[in-house]
């Protein structure tokens, strides 16, 4: 019999499992987390069962500190509100919770990201005549604007890790000062409204963080990959000089929780 806190060996877990586990580990106990639809939900629920039992979750559609017993598939899902502390609406979640200042951690996804952590979920190509449109911003930029830390969960592909995103949907560490449009640091743009910003990006290949200049670097590489391979899957010149080692694989206990408690129905985990 294997101990629950023992680490899985290569081949004993899927890429998505590690994605969820690595993301869950970014949650500090007691964090007030504002989570988006999809993998962020999986990660916060796992965190609550492991390293962050006192973390609470706010869902955009108005569920405050819900305690779902069935995995929600959308932040609007009735499942989010089960045993919630407050059930209200979006005015409460954005104004009454987010800009009110309660949120420690934003847990988000994204289609494309640049080295400053700017995320695009709006269009491919020139906005005036795009070649493709994504879903649009949703609450991604809002949560990312005001959480004290933001973690992105993304798929690692060369075309998704770009030198410049076609459209800055969600704010990273270098932004535009509107209406003039000059580039500025996030602190300059947000001034006294500055709360923090992107802290980590978790992909299927590694964990990325941001340096003092707000530039992304590779922190840990997932087992089975090399730093060079990760760099090859970025369009920008990824800094791999600060890699601290290999990402800790999931434990048997974490995998068990993921498949039996968090997503027993196989909604996100195939």
């Amino acid at each position, binding site marked *: 019999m294997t101990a629950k806190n023992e680490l899985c060996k290569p081949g004993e877990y899927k890429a998505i499992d590690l994605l969820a586990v690595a993301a869950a580990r970014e949650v500090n106990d007691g964090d007030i987390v504002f989570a988006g639809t999809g993998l962020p939900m999986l990660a916060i629920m796992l965190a609550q069962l492991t390293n962050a039992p006192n973390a609470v979750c706010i869902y955009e559609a108005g*569920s405050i500190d819900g305690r779902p017993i069935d995995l929600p598939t959308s932040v*609007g*899902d*009735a499942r989010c509100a089960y045993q919630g502390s407050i059930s209200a609406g*979006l005015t409460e979640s954005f104004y009454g919770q987010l800009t009110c200042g309660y949120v420690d951690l934003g847990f988000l996804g994204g289609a494309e990201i640049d080295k400053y952590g700017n995320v695009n979920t709006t269009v491919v190509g020139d906005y005036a005549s795009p070649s493709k*449109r*994504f879903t649009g911003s*949703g609450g991604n930029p809002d949560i990312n604007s005001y959480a004290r830390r933001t973690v992105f969960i993304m798929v690692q592909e060369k075309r998704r890790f770009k030198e410049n995103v076609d459209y*800055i949907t969600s704010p990273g560490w270098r932004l535009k000062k509107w209406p003039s449009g000059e580039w500025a640091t996030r602190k300059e743009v947000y001034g006294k409204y500055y709360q923090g910003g992107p802290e980590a990006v978790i992909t299927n290949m590694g964990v990325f963080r941001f340096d003092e200049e707000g530039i992304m670097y590779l922190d840990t590489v997932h087992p089975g990959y090399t730093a060079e391979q990760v760099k090859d899957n970025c369009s920008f010149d990824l800094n791999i000089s600060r890699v601290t080692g290999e990402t800790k694989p999931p434990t048997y206990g974490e995998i068990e929780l993921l498949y039996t408690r968090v*997503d027993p129905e196989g909604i996100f985990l195939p």
Partner: protein
Amino acid sequence: MGKIQTITLQEAAGLIQDGDMLTFSGFTIWRRPMALVYELVRQGKKDLHLFEVNGGTHTEVLAGAGAIKIWESCWVGHELYGKLGEGVARSQVENTIIVEDYSHAHCVARLLAGAYGLPFMPTPLSMGTDILNPAYDNLKKAGLRDGSNPKIPKQKYLMYEEPFFDKGALVLVPAVNADWALIYASQVGSEGTVRVNAQTYTDPEAIKAAKKVIVIAEEIVPETYLRDDPTKNLAAPYAIDYIVELPWGAHPTGSQGYYDVDADFIRQFYAASKSKEKYDEWAQEWIFGVANHDEYLEKLGVSKLEKLKANTVLGYSTRMKRGSR
């Protein structure tokens, strides 16, 4: 405002004029007034100006039918069951609709301002993003910010530095006051008090901000039942103009306490939404091919509806297969 009238679905859709500005209840694929949206397509409405805090399946039904002229929002898709709003995306790429992008919180702020009778709301969110890029103001580019249309503000937003605490610039976004709020609610009292279960989304704000309000209600219940607990209600009778009683009126979107999202139906619609031809086939089958809502429900069939039905304690379906296991 005024005395509430109980009308039919056909009459309700008939009130909407081509070119009217609409907003909706619900959130992505939850509590959308789908039956009314189908009827708008059936009646061939055109040139609609949609303001939505977020879009969803209903938006795509209208987009596919070519009924939308202006779409102001932040998001459109079908959650897990269709990752893009293909109809809106195609129309934007083909330049057949005007898309005005805001952030989700900006949209909430705009609707809240409208609800509160204010010309704008401030927000410090989503600063520094291309949402605020003045070159990307599509209504301005279309020449529609000249003040001639009272529903289109003269500016998309304004960066404003306040003199009280010298905290620096934040965003002011203009109010939205649509001609119509098309609302799906779970319960409406016999005198018009409105209640929904679980999260309220931006339903109260949509009701308050609109000039006229049509509610498609899952059921009409005794007024005193709703008034026994006034803390749980959304709107007073005088906030509502027209009511249509219509069980399953939100299908295929979900209605907490009544039925869950019909994932398969939305997946099929999403697949169809990827081309004009397939959309038309789909619409032929599910909109034009059924004479009315009753026929639509018959076509769905009892066994499907029973699977979607919510567990009365949990508020969502426990009989529906959701994942791969």
